[in-house]
């Protein structure tokens, strides 16, 4: 990819930004190469607050609609906000239908649309709800002058904590009637949340669920994350949630867990990007090597 393209991207040309993100995604350029081309001295801001925030939660709780409202609110305050919206790739064909954009109406608001960038991303080969290359895409967007980057994960389950590896803050979105109080006690994603939003507060059971969550957090050690009620569909609670999320601090409850996720994600990326991967899969499928042998080869402990 040409230096002019990268320079144009850093200077805010949207088409060049889109092309550069594709370049990163396709492995045609690395973040290091971009850093060399970009004049790093133009980094205008210092960041004591967060830059990237992952919004995660089960399918259908209203992540996209909530994000639409956050985009409009934050861009309305003058912040430049990028959204990386992730949907799954088919494990069978590699194809993907990326439909998060359908819910995003903030990009049609003439007053703020220049401050909003939305990009749909397929998980491709990665196993988790967020491909690791997204962390490089976030860094690049920051270099290109975007203030905040929202990552919308694939609708995820209780144990899906991979987004912890790449985002500065994690917001878990819940809905009403998501099970009894015991659900809130179970281990997993909620333990890593820096804030929890119970969306669809216009429906029965939302307040009760929020109370159960608050109670559960107070039984644990450390500072409890904020639990907020919103209704993305009628706007209730959005102003408060938008302000609170801009200010949330790292809950600090999960530093080790985050590094664990980063380590696992990096390890997986190394395997997926290995030149030997296809060859090893053929050998495994044919039964000529064991899983342990395959790991040794990929880990460089054994040459074959």
């Amino acid at each position: 990819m040409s230096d002019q393209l990268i320079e144009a991207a850093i200077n805010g040309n949207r088409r060049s930004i889109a092309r550069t993100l594709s370049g990163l995604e396709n492995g045609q350029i690395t973040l290091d190469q971009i850093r060399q081309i970009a004049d790093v001295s133009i980094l205008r801001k210092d960041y004591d607050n967060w830059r990237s925030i992952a919004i995660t939660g089960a399918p259908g709780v209203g992540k996209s609609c909530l994000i639409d409202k956050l985009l409009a609110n934050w861009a309305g305050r003058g912040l430049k906000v990028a959204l990386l919206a992730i949907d799954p790739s088919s494990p069978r064909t590699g194809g993907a239908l990326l439909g998060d954009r359908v819910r995003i109406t903030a990009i049609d608001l003439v007053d703020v649309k220049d401050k909003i960038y939305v990009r749909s991303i397929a998980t491709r080969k990665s196993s988790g709800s967020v491909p690791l290359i997204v962390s490089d895409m976030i860094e690049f967007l920051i270099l290109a002058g975007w203030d905040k980057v929202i990552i919308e994960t694939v609708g995820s389950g209780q144990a899906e904590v991979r987004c912890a590896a790449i985002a500065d803050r994690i917001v878990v979105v819940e809905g009403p009637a998501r099970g009894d109080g015991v659900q809130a006690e179970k281990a997993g994603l909620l333990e890593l949340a820096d804030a929890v939003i119970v969306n669809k507060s216009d429906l029965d059971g939302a307040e009760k669920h929020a109370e159960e969550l608050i109670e559960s957090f107070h039984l644990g050690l450390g500072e409890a994350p904020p639990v907020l009620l919103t209704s993305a569909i009628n706007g209730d609670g959005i102003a408060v949630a938008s302000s609170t999320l801009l200010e949330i601090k790292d809950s600090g409850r999960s530093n080790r867990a985050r590094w664990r996720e980063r380590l696992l994600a990096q390890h997986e990326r190394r395997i997926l990007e290995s030149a030997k991967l296809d060859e090893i899969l053929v050998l495994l499928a044919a039964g000529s090597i064991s899983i342990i042998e395959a790991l040794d080869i990929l880990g460089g402990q054994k040459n074959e």
Partner: protein
Amino acid sequence: MSQPLRIVVAKPGLDGHDRGAKVVARTLRDAGHEVIYTGLRRTAQQIVETVRDEDARFLGLSSLSGAHNHLFPKVCELLVAEGLNDVIVFAGGIIPHDDRSGLFSCKIRAIFGPGTPTAEILEFIDTSANMADIGVGDSNDWFWESSA
């Protein structure tokens, strides 16, 4: 392994029927491509901004409302104005044969009517992805001879 193509499937104008667009989107997905669906009732400007921000290589336009002669050329015009000359545009829906030559002259490279086998659309995508000068901003007059 080659990278998947990024393809925007769009519904311009006041047209509430997207079964066809969804069938095409699904076909392209199952062929291993990354398909970004815009949803219903998009303006030409919104579609072009989506193509730009998503870095799409192809744009598929679907219309059943009869407004294609107004909306499709507008989209092509805005793509060129935005510098997106290398995007390959194709179309489908209810597009009478008498209207097609005018749309081909706007550099829409294929028009698929009702009854087109989905395999033909994939064949068009594969063929055109390997051609260098058939973007919406290229003067080349080539277009796909569709079966329906």
